[in-house]
Structure formats: structure tokens, C-alpha cells
């Protein structure tokens, strides 16, 4: 299929209500870290961008939000023009300029501290990372604690970034600065806001 056609097709069939459904799933996932919120495939972006990550991008990004794409997405002209057509979001020159970052290959991604961390005065001005993962059950189990979690929650996302637990600990220490993560799996999403602490599961 031509890039022009690919970039136009595959958006929300029902923009107002689909965006609301996707946002509520993200909001519930962010408010209850570790919970998995199921999400139908509303958007159909060109590969390698997944349907879930594409839906989240359409629901949250627009011309106010510079977007950073990881190298796996950056090389796809179809993905760039699809995001450009449907969201109007400009591409960020560096990860530190990005409001949102879409990452198709989290296992190979750059360090979390390369993204915008916000400032001590405005900690909200940090990058929200959307990581595309194959599932939320087959990776190393992460036991989570923090606001939004009654006692503990556990998720096991596959293909997480290298040294993720150590990197996340550093992210916690920067509080109130820090990045927030939306994990986009094929059948649902889970979130790791900066307040969530990971307890490593020993034996």
C-alpha cells in the first residue's frame, strides 16, 4: 500500500468516543498502577507501531505535544506520516524535548534519564513514555507498591528496557521529577507513574 493511503487510513472510526474510551483506560491504569485495562484495537497504524500504542497516541497527542520516536519507528516513513496526519504532533528533535515518546523496541531503548524529567518547579513537564510490549505476563515479575495500589500489585511486562529496575529506582529518587510509563500490550495497557516503587522479587 502506498504511504499516502497508509497514513490516512487506520485512525479512530469514532474519534470522540474512541478517544474517551482510550483515555479512561489510561487514566484508570495510571490511577491503579499494575492493573491491566483492556483496550480494543481502535486504531490500525502501519507496522511497527502497534494498535494499542497507536490508539494511545491518537487519544493524547496533538500539535501541542512534541513526539519522539525510537529508531525502530523513526525509520518507518509510514508511521511518521500516519502519526503526522492523525495527530498533527511535531517530531521532537531530542528525547529531552518530547512530551510523549513512542518506543517500539523497549529492550534496546536509551536510558530513561535521557528524556525530559520536568523541573523541580514544574515536575509535570516531563516525558510520558509509551512502551510497546508483547505482553504483560511473560517477563520478569515486578512487584509494585505506591499510591494507587492497595497493598501490592504484580505485572511482568516482556521486553523491558535494560537494567529497568535500577533505572526505575533512580527515577523514583528524582521525585517529584521523573518520567511516567504507559505499557501498551496487544490486549491492554498498564501504567507505571513515577510514584510507583518496584520491589524486586527474590526467589
Amino acid at each position, binding site marked *: 500500500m502506498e504511504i499516502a493511503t497508509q497514513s490516512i487510513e487506520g*485512525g*479512530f*472510526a*469514532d*474519534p*470522540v*468516543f474512541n*478517544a*474517551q*474510551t482510550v*483515555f*479512561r483506560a*489510561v*487514566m*484508570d491504569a*495510571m*490511577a*491503579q498502577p499494575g492493573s491491566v485495562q483492556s483496550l480494543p484495537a481502535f486504531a490500525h497504524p502501519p507496522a511497527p507501531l502497534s494498535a494499542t500504542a497507536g490508539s494511545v497516541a491518537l*487519544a*493524547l*497527542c*496533538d500539535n*501541542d*505535544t512534541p513526539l519522539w520516536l525510537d529508531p525502530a519507528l523513526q525509520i518507518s516513513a509510514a508511521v511518521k506520516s500516519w502519526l503526522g496526519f492523525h495527530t498533527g504532533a511535531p517530531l521532537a528533535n531530542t528525547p529531552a524535548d518530547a*512530551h510523549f515518546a513512542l518506543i517500539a523496541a523497549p529492550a534496546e531503548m536509551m536510558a530513561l534519564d535521557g528524556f525530559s524529567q520536568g*523541573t*523541580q*518547579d*514544574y*515536575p*509535570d513537564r*516531563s516525558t*510520558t513514555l509509551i512502551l510497546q510490549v508483547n505482553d504483560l505476563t511473560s517477563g520478569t515479575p515486578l512487584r509494585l507498591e505506591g*499510591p*494507587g*495500589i*492497595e497493598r501490592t500489585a504484580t505485572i511482568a511486562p516482556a521486553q523491558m528496557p535494560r537494567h529497568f529496575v535500577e533505572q526505575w529506582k533512580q527515577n523514583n529518587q528524582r*521525585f*517529584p521529577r521523573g518520567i*511516567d510509563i504507559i505499557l501498551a500490550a496487544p490486549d491492554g495497557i498498564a501504567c507505571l*507513574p*513515577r*510514584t510507583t516503587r518496584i520491589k524486586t522479587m527474590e526467589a
Partner: protein
Amino acid sequence: MTVQPTDIATYNFAYLDEQTKRMIRRAILKGIAIPGYQVPFASREMPMPYGWGTGGVQVTASIIGPDDVLKVIDQGADDTTNAVSIRAFFKKVANVAVTTETAKATIIQTRHRIPEHPLISGQVLVYQVPIPEPLRFLEPRETETRKMHALEEYGLMHVKLYEDIAKHGRIATTYAYPVKVEGRYVMDPSPTPKFDNPKMHRSPALQLFGAGREKRIYALPPFTEVVSLDFEDHPFEVQTFDQPCALCAAENVYLDEVILDDHGGHMFVCSDTDHCEKRREEGHRGHLAAETHLALEKMEPAQ
């Protein structure tokens, strides 16, 4: 690429345009990620004046969907002006189901009360906030209060509470009583009576705060530590009432004083009207209930 046919063609669903909703939704997500921190947002003009809940209305409009059930309360009451008009607004622009029953609502927009009926996981409580900055009356400059939050410099707030004790012998703040969230940010819980502060602590519901004129959104995720500021020798206390509700005999609830005549006659009744009605349906009677309960038959949400 067509929006479902509705009979509200003149407005986008829930009044706000989609770009505004996205902007507010992004602010809500950052607010949830940094509990107690006030996220600036580009508040819009709404078809109601500032001070009538434009912040709460914008938050509700950004999260509400066709399947939601909305309850709106004004000082605990479902049937006073602000509650009735905001409920009618969302019926009109979002065509959503409305209710007065706390347990049936998925979104509860509130002006300064938390319902007596315990909230559950999955419910969202949206507060209308007039002045979101707890330090504002102590330090009028935004540049300074922002720095104080950044440096976690909250000594001034304790001085204010201490001055209360020096003047009145006790902490005289009874509403908008400052809280500390997860041991980090000091937050204004909006002008709720301090009676409701303990309900914020580790509430299973998501709590969102919208200040329209001041252009701030902040949030408390479920199960978040919310501690009312106090001193070891002057611990935080909530209001107590020496008599039960005059209509439903409820105790340990927040009561409003109602003037009955011009000879000093008055009674104390539940501020939460839904809670009071439910109790009277269950057969609870207060000492003034006999002649009044017929007049207060179960009401439909006003249009």
C-alpha cells in the same frame, strides 16, 4: 469517520472540543502521577461564571463517557442550584444518565463535601476548587509559592496553624484544612469541612480537583496517604455534633444547621441529602421527622 448521530448536534459531546479535552486529559494524567501537585492547564471559558464550578465541570467533561452515571452535589445536597444546573448541563451536552444515589454513580462532581456513603474502587470524585494553592493566603506571589512547593518548604503553613493555637487555644481552621499527600506535597482539599479530610486518606476512589479560574488540576490516586497537618500536642480532630440528624437520627455524619423560624428555632440535618433520604426510607426517624418526611418523598433528579 462520523460521530454517532445524537440530538446534541450543536455541541461536541460533553461541550468541550476534542483538543481541549486532550489538553485537560494530559493534565489529569500528570496530576495522578504527581499526587498533590497542581498541574497548570489552559482553563476555558465555560457557559457559567467562575466560582460556579468551571474547573470541576471541565474535568468532568474531559473524563465522562456515554456509559457514565453522574451525581452532582452542592454542600452534600443533590437539589440545590449549583448541583441542579450542572447536572442539567451534562444531561444536555453529554446525554448521560444522572442519579442522586452515591452508590450508583460512576462520577460524582462535588462542591465541598464527600458523600457519607463510602466510595468504592472505580468511582471518580471530581472536586470544584476555588483557590487550589494552600499557601496563597500566606504568600500571594505565585513565583514564591511555586518555589516553596519545589523546595518542600512548608514551615509557613505550620506557623499559621500555630498562630491559630496561640490565638484561640486550638487549630481554628474548620474547612480547606491543609493536608500532606504521600509525605511530599501540601494540598488544599478544597473548602470541604475538615470532617471529610479523613475520608480522603487511602480512599478507594480516584479524586480529581479542578480549579477553573486559577487554572490548576490536581489529583489523588486511590489508596494515597493523605495526612491532615497538626502538632503532637494538638492533634487533628474533626467536628463533632452533640445531637443526631433531626430527620433521620444519623450520628457521626456532617450536619447543617437549618433555621426554622425567627424565634431562634433551628435544627441540625444531614448535609448529605441522599444519605438522609436513604436512612428515612429504611425507617430511621429523627425527632422532627414525623411532619416533614411526607414532604420529602423520593425526588427525581431535577431537570
